[in-house]
């Protein structure tokens, strides 16, 4: 079995080296940028608005300039990693074998295609999850640095772009691309279709989950200091206690909308408190892992039944 795993890695050596290098680059860059953001010393200013001084303003300018110049590109690269793993490691596992005809050799030698499939798939999936998890942890660290004073483990800052969710996204895109490859049997079409479906699928799951979490959201005063919470929506609170949006308010009180200062009703926000981050993250991770498991099992069933090409 060890030999078969070694050969699996050897078959994907090029992609593994490139993607491991890319991940290492993202991780190192994230840690370096996080260190540089921390090193600016903006943290105390960000936490206590009352002591906001001129020097804090200077620090803030430098902090946000560095954030947009250095942190944002690194986090963008980190967000691309799950797709890179899925498309360049997941898609080729079976699709490239079918395309090149090596399945004819492999499936005529292996009495159990399922065993072949597991030995071909499991090592890659494990590596993908590990690499994406490390990248997710580095992204965690960077988000912590760009949100000074916020306990990142209890905050929705960068939700879906850091931590374990990055690893689970990589898993589900890898599983999807792998499954698609078993059906399509050609690498390039698999990569293109998987990219489109991956983006749409992750977005769809995120939106569905947001609808679900909306039911758990609470109303808080929107004083501009809601930190760490997942912002769902914003309302005006009328004197009778009703919560209305902009359009509704325009119908109820058109004059308020025309005021130069804007509507003077107190604003409230619908948010999921940051303390629920772990729970919400775990729930989305479980759903995505379930989807990935279904796709991996489905791919196994197709491998057992399909022609070798």
């Amino acid at each position: 079995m060890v030999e078969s795993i070694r050969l699996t890695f050897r078959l994907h050596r090029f992609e593994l080296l490139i993607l491991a290098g890319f991940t290492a680059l993202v991780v190192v860059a994230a840690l370096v940028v996080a260190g540089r953001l921390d090193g600016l010393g903006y943290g105390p200013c960000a936490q206590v608005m009352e002591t906001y001084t001129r020097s804090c303003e200077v620090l803030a300018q430098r902090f946000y300039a560095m954030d947009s110049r250095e942190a944002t590109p690194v986090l963008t690269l980190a967000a691309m990693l799950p797709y890179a793993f899925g498309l360049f490691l997941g898609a080729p596992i079976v699709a490239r074998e079918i395309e090149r005809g090596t399945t004819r050799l492999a499936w005529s030698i292996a009495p159990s295609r399922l065993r072949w499939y597991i030995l071909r798939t499991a090592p890659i999936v494990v590596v993908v999850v590990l690499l994406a998890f490390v990248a997710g942890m580095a992204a965690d660290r960077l988000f912590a640095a760009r949100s000074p004073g916020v306990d990142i483990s209890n905050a929705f800052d960068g939700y879906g772009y850091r931590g374990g969710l990055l690893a689970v996204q990589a898993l589900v895109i890898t599983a999807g691309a792998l499954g698609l490859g078993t059906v399509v049997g050609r690498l390039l079409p698999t990569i293109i279709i998987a990219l489109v479906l991956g983006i749409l699928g992750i977005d769809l799951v995120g939106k569905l989950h947001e609808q679900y979490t909306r039911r758990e959201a609470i109303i808080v005063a929107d004083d501009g200091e809601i930190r760490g919470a997942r912002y769902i929506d914003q309302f005006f609170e009328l004197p009778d206690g009703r919560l209305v949006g902009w359009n509704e308010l325009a119908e109820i009180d058109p004059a308020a909308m025309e005021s130069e200062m804007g509507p003077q009703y107190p604003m409230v926000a619908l948010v999921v408190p940051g303390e629920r981050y772990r729970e919400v993250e775990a729930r989305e991770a479980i759903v995505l892992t379930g989807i990935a498991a279904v796709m991996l099992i489905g791919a196994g069933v197709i491998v057992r039944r399909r022609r070798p090409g």
Partner: protein
Amino acid sequence: MTVVLETIGLGKRYGLRRWALRDLDLTVEEGSITALVGPNGSGKSTLLKAWVGFERPTAGKLRIRGVDPVRNRGAAIALTGYVPQAPSLYRELSVDDHIAFAAGHRPGFDRQLARGYLDDLSIPLDSRADELSGGQQAQVGLALALGTRAPVLLLDEPLASLDPLARREFLQVLVEAVRAVGATALLSSHVITDIEQACDSLIVLGGGRSLLAVSIAEAIAGHRVVAANEPHPIGAVVVGTFPAATGERVALVRGSAGRPATLEEVVIGHLAAGRPERPQRASRKAAA
């Protein structure tokens, strides 16, 4: 003799209309090296793939040593060493990696046997598959099939892309290996001159049906060639007519008159008939 490979009324249809195999009844006896010949599209590859479970029959049954590959593909694969039409090697892996791959997936795979064949042919084990010539890749495919120590070898046109010397070497290894272990081999090929020396039985497929299934010796001894435009000898049964290499039209006949037929002429004559054996008896009038 024990029947190792068998089809009963086998049919395979692609799409709604195109039958690759139809009503095919065949047997291959244990210990034989049988040539499976026929034109492109005659169903050779489909038949071999069906025995390793790569194709599901549309009709009929097939067995490999009594095992139905449709119902129990794993058991059928375990009985089979298969050499696909193209070598199908992993270009990223070395020859030795392929042997390790086979050993990792096939219980009982004989690494030493496979390495021994390749050593004898001076094929470097540390070479990547994409560095090998076509002939060497075919030899690696054969060594992997032989290393399985399977009692049945199915070879799907392994000679197609090889030069004459590589074909000879391939067949030599095949014949020696099969004879050494008493295995059964079914070899599809277009190259009739080569299979004549290597094989002892012949199956001619045409239009997805069996046109002829006899020993090579019987095939040659039982057929004669006569000029097609001359009266056929009395009692000669015309199998088919076709243009000879010289350009004249000749007829393959069953009987004792005429010049001896080569194996190639036997095959071409039966393919020219284009249908399962339904020979026409030459009329006495024509003979007169």
